């Protein structure tokens, strides 16, 4: 019986990583559905596809590259470049379809260039695609320093807003029900096409032949007469295509383009591919698995959202722990295979190696279990406290940014306030406006509530002295601005004192703001009262 199971396992050994991920996905979603009734709504599941369509698309391209044993670090750069270039062209009035087509061609061209460097000039993929990323991001800023909004473009609006209703879960007549976006459908279509290419074309099979076995497969493939170099170039071209397509999807999603978008995104893509069961050394893995990798990330984010009390950076830690476990499993399986082969040739492997492998595997598994346990405990504690449904969030990234209230700020200054402080943005898209008066009164307004606090006039003087001490009214304090990232805030600070009035703006994430600006913001933040909701 055990032997039968053993042979069954070894026969289907290649499916183990994929199965593991699929199981993980189901378990995670199941746990979530139990803990949070809100997650049982099928729309939540569909939203994962809606929100991560660009993620899936770029990860598919990365899968191909990794299968050949290479890597593509330029994904985020090409994506960003696509958003910026598309937005700029649309602003000039170009036809949207033409723009999309042009972007895809551009992505393919960049990919082909990098692929040629890798295949013919024998540059390491790591370095070649790294240079590509720098180049692409740099090109973004050639086009525009600031974000470019895509507004009032009919085609883009259609592409972004159309709801594709799921048959069986919706009522087409009334146009309500569970839906998914066009980008998500495109992503799934691409998945199907990619699976077909990988499994049913010569190009795809050559791709598998090149990767793996520590580069020996590539030599074998060449000796077997396969077109190794051409295949490599095509693979990177395909990845460039996917990066560009992902960029298009992203630009539709956020309706803007900026060179700072998708920072570090290639890591997410690689994580999805690895968790999906594809080995980083190449040659093994299924494109279908990448879908599960993306789902793992999406579900993790959803769980954290529903929990509400876990901060978003836990996502990264959880994903990293999963990554570690999967890589540990991959190493373990690879070592077992190597040992079996060597055992055939040279007798039994030393017990010490086996013990060490087991230790490594067990160790990483234990680490993951601990982290998962911590999270689960945390989650249970919090959900026991909350009890009620958390509302279904519609999107995970961009919420509707509120407008700045500069006119209201001006009113406060006219009214006699010495310091007016506005903070806008963040994960919950707030806009908080405070005014500090010389008599110690502090008033705050976030558009919904108002809050008041009284401090002493001496404390106001100390604050002002501190601000002036940081050279507020000199040239060393100046405006800086970028489009804020999803988590970031934008700040306006007006100081009116002794006949002088100066407003300086700044935004989280920019490293070129004067250092003392943040010191001052911090001082002010410490003094003003908080609204009861967001921190």
């Amino acid at each position, binding site marked *: 019986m055990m032997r039968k199971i053993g042979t069954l396992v070894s026969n289907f050994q290649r499916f183990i990583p994929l199965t593991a991920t699929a199981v993980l996905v189901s378990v995670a979603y199941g746990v979530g559905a139990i803990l949070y009734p809100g997650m049982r709504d099928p729309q939540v599941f569909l939203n994962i596809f809606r929100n991560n369509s660009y993620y899936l698309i770029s990860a598919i391209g990365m899968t191909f590259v990794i299968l050949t044993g290479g890597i593509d670090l330029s994904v985020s750069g090409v994506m960003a470049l696509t958003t910026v270039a598309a937005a700029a062209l649309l602003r000039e009035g170009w036809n949207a379809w033409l723009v999309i087509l042009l972007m895809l061609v551009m992505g393919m061209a960049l990919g082909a260039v990098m692929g040629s460097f890798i295949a013919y000039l024998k540059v390491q993929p790591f*370095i070649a695609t790294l240079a590509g990323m*720098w*180049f*692409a991001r*740099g090109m973004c800023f050639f086009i525009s320093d600031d974000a470019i909004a895509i507004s009032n473009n009919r085609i883009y609006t259609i592409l972004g807003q159309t709801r594709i209703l799921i048959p069986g879960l919706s009522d087409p007549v009334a146009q309500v029900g569970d839906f998914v976006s066009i980008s998500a459908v495109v992503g799934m279509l691409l998945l199907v096409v990619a699976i077909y290419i990988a499994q049913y074309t010569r190009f795809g099979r050559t791709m598998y032949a090149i990767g793996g076995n520590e580069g020996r497969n590539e030599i074998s493939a060449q000796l077997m007469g396969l077109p190794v170099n051409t295949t490599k170039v095509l693979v990177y071209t395909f990845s460039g295509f996917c990066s560009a397509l992902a960029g298009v999807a992203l630009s539709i999603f956020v309706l803007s383009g900026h060179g700072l978008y998708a920072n570090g995104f290639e890591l997410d893509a690689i994580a999805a591919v690895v968790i999906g069961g594809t080995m*980083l050394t190449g040659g093994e893995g299924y494109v279908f698995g990448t879908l599960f990798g993306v789902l793992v990330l999406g579900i993790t984010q959803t769980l954290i959202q529903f929990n509400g009390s876990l901060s978003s950076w836990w996502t990264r*830690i959880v994903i990293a722990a999963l990554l570690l476990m999967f890589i540990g499993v991959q190493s373990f399986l690879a070592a077992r295979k190597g040992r079996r082969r060597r055992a055939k040739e040279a007798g039994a492997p030393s017990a010490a190696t086996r013990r060490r492998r087991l230790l490594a595997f067990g160790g990483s598994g234990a680490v993951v279990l601990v982290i998962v346990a911590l999270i689960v405990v945390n989650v249970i504690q919090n959900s026991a406290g909350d009890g009620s449904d958390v509302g279904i969030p519609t999107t995970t990234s961009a919420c509707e940014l509120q407008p700045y209230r500069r006119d209201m700020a001006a009113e406060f200054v006219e009214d006699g306030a010495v310091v007016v402080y506005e903070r806008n943005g963040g994960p919950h898209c707030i806009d908080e406006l405070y005014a500090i008066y010389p008599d110690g009164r502090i008033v705050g307004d976030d558009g919904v509530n108002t809050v008041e606090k009284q401090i002493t006039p001496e404390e106001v003087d100390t604050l002002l002295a501190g601000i002036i001490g940081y050279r507020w009214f000199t040239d060393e304090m100046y405006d800086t601005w970028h489009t804020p990232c999803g988590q970031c805030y934008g700040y306006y600070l007006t100081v009116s004192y002794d006949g002088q009035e100066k407003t300086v703006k700044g935004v989280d994430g920019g490293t070129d703001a004067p250092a003392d600006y943040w010191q001052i913001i911090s001082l002010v933040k410490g003094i003003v009262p908080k609204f009861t909701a967001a921190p």
Partner: protein
Amino acid sequence: MSKSKSSFTLSKITGSSLFFPFVALALILLFDLIAVPGFFRISTREGNLYGNLIDIVRNASTVSLLAIGMTLVIATGGVDLSVGAVMAIAASVAAILMNPYVLATELPPHILKFMSDPNFTYQPLWVVILVTLIVATICGLWNGLLVAYGKIQPMVATLILMYAGRGIAQLITNGVRIQIFYEPYAFIGQGWIILPFSLYIVAIVFVIAWLLTRKTAIGMFIESVGTNSRSSFFSGINEKRIKLLAYTFCGLCAGIAGLVASSNIKTSDAFNLGVTKELDAILAVVIGGTLMSGGRFSLLASIVGAWVIQAITTSMYAVGVPAFALQAIKGVVVIFVILLYSEQVRGFVQRITAQKEA
């Protein structure tokens, strides 16, 4: 007689590991000399030196520190992608040690005043620095264990910490970007004793690294392991311990770099600190002539490589190239450097100079 002596020196120079990086640096400075009048002017203020050249080496100090550690790792045939994330972790640890009150939701007002006091720190500075460096060393140790004992590919193993590191850094400060008001800490990155203080830090770390690698057998063992690990095994070298040391030291260097960088902006910015710095560090090492496959290395050449990168940036600014164009140019430079360093070109140059001897 004299002819053979001079050609001997010529090929010795071109063969030296410092040759190419210095040529690169010289080319850039030459460009500056022509294109930017007054580029090389050095002024003094209150006994301290200022000027573009000083700026180059000062702004390069973070990457220089990273490059020192990265050189050892690359020389063993690996790579460490997590140094940027370790910088962020170090900065978070330092900030939280100086100012843990930031985490509290409600603060009595007198504590509030303390927090922004430039003389206030919760822990004395030496404790802050010591604990930070210990944490950074542990990060390096983690990487080393994964690579040397877990036999995981270096790129993959360090990718994990690179990914999780920023999450961990944010975890430490609970997502708050802590402002650091403590003045002595700011001195690390912004202070000046005739020359910028960070230069002295770089110099000290360089000397320590140099002593560690060239005055002990460690340097030779690293080169041996990176060149041919099986032959090194047969000769009795413990490859695992050497690799562990390299990655641990790299983590330590990243911690020091994190201190310098965060003191420069007086913040612990877990999100942005050190972003893409690991790539700069790798590029510096490559420009410095260490092969990514491992083997011979030169710490000084890597630092020169860091200067080259910074010199490009500073020169572009001086010429008036806007910031955004810089990244694109960097990408082009990388390609140029990589091709220049490929075996073919190097061998070509050395063959020509060798022929002149004959």
